[in-house]
């Protein structure tokens, strides 16, 4: 597997503020720090810090547009985490049905 580690992505999503930022960006539009700061009750610096955490985990990306940094949602990492969780769940289903065969036979 190319990226066997879902934990950094889950850890990055595991914060109320970051989840809100992701929620806004997931609507599809690229947003500036100023646009993302509105209504969060945080300073620009605080929001920037959270965005950098999300960027390091690959959940968002940034690009320079004029004088501003615009942030965008990157769905691939989240897709990966979802398929990972699905595979864990499927593996348990398989293991438990083998356990059932063993103890009920």
């Amino acid at each position, binding site marked *: 597997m190319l990226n066997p580690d879902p934990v950094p992505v889950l*850890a990055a999503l595991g914060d*109320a503020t970051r989840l809100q930022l992701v929620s806004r960006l997931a609507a599809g539009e690229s947003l500036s720090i100023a646009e993302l700061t509105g209504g969060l009750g945080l300073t620009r610096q605080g929001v920037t810090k959270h965005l950098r955490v999300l960027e390091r985990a690959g959940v968002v990306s940034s690009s320079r547009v004029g004088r501003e940094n615009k942030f965008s949602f990157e769905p691939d990492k989240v897709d990966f985490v979802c398929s990972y969780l699905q595979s864990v769940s499927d593996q348990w289903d398989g293991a438990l049905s083998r356990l059932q065969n063993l103890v009920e036979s």
Partner: protein
Amino acid sequence: MQDSIEKVIDLKAPVSRVWQAITDYKEFGAWFQVDLENPFVVGEVTRGAVTYPGSEGVKWESTTEAIEPERLFSFRWCPYADDNEIDYSKEPTMLVEFRLEPTSTGTRLVVTESGFSKLPDKAMATEALRRNTSGWDIQAGHITAYVES
């Protein structure tokens, strides 16, 4: 806030039989598909190699947390440690718990695997995730379903 996958299965076998099948390392290996080298002992590491088709040879390492006869068996492991070249001993671990209780037909087994994330308050997370309308909605639903279950 829970961050776990939970599975409940009703087994038509007595608790003592199920207990043996999950705590005897050879029997555990048979259904979990892992070739274990040593028994489960509280505080000690059990090593082995996965025999699951497609993952054959992947290293298994678990540390036994609790053995309460016919009630609770638990261990910690790192389930995404699928690269034998990397030292996963410092990585975060998942806690796997097997809880048994007798029923009129046999045994109810509840398996919980927790530690996937530390998502904040459940209601807030769900609210935040529901608000948007893109494909993320569906993905978020998946995550929320898992972490809430």
